[in-house]
């Protein structure tokens, strides 16, 4: 006899995607957590361009830092390289505009399909009504394609975790 499952009371995996423009100053974004859930952040996957179409190196020192807003504390003593917690990281090389984008909102640029390899597990619990604050810094290298607010480069961030219903 197959038993019923009350999935409304169960945690479930939830992946949050953000495409963050790279600016020539620290760019801090806030990610709201779904209403009615805590969020256990397990891993961060990121991809960004390490060179432009001409092979010129970009962003050799792109850093990330996390802030836990409910406790008003930073989760590291200083910003550190995205490469230390995520792959593919800088292996996603900037290329060009998508030839036939389905919708062009922030997806006018596409990345090389670098393999997803290793990740550092974070296991940070964000409570409901909290925000996940991410700060991306170190995008200081000027190039023909960046930094320009009208034509920025991006870092693609996937926050892998679980939505946990509030008891």
């Amino acid at each position, binding site marked *: *006899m*197959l*038993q019923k*499952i009350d*999935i409304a009371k*169960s945690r*479930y*995996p*939830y*992946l*949050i*995607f*953000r495409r963050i423009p790279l600016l020539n100053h620290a760019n801090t974004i806030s990610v709201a957590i779904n209403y009615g859930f805590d969020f256990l952040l*397990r891993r961060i*996957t990121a*991809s960004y361009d390490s060179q432009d179409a001409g092979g010129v190196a970009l962003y050799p020192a792109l850093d990330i830092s996390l802030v836990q807003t409910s406790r008003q504390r930073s989760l590291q003593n200083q910003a550190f390289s995205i490469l230390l917690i995520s792959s*593919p990281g800088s292996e*996603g090389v900037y*290329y060009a505009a*998508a*030839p*036939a*984008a*389905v*919708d062009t909102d922030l*997806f006018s640029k*596409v*990345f*090389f*399909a*670098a*393999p*997803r*390899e*290793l*990740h550092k597990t974070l296991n940070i619990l964000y409570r409901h009504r909290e925000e996940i604050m991410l700060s991306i810094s170190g995008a200081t290298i000027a190039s023909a394609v960046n930094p320009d607010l009208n034509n920025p480069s991006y870092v*693609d961030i*996937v926050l*892998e975790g679980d939505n946990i219903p509030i008891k």
Partner: protein
Amino acid sequence: MNVFAGLLKTAAMFDVQTVQYSEVLYLADSVGAGAQKVCRVSISALGHFLCQFITGSFTTQATAGLPVDNGIDYLRGKLIDGGAQRALFSDYIPLHLILTPGRRKSLAAGAAGNALFYPLPLEYMFTANSEIVFDVKNDSDVANNFSIAFHGVRIKDFKRK
């Protein structure tokens, strides 16, 4: 000598496997040029399916005349539990960020595909009679294919015999 031979209770394991056993659900499709497609795989009435990991690959083709395998990820997708109408992704995620081995060689002239690394852990119970929905967008000007394997356990009953 197999040191585990005396530890594994094979008879009990065999009994459990009559109601809970490893299964892989496979979803593969082709998404047209500049198109969006909602792809589905049925869980069926056989039992619940506890997904544990997903692996997958995709093609990376574009064209200016003849198709070219240029290694660029044009596909992005959103995974949805079709039974509960619950999105498991907040947005459409480029497939190279979630799938391993990811890119696969699709043309004779294309570069080699990637190797299998660490699968994406995705522990989720898809209930019987529901379906896994994968909503995919293709930003290329030619069709691209993808395939995903949902690795998990088919659960016909929670009770051991």
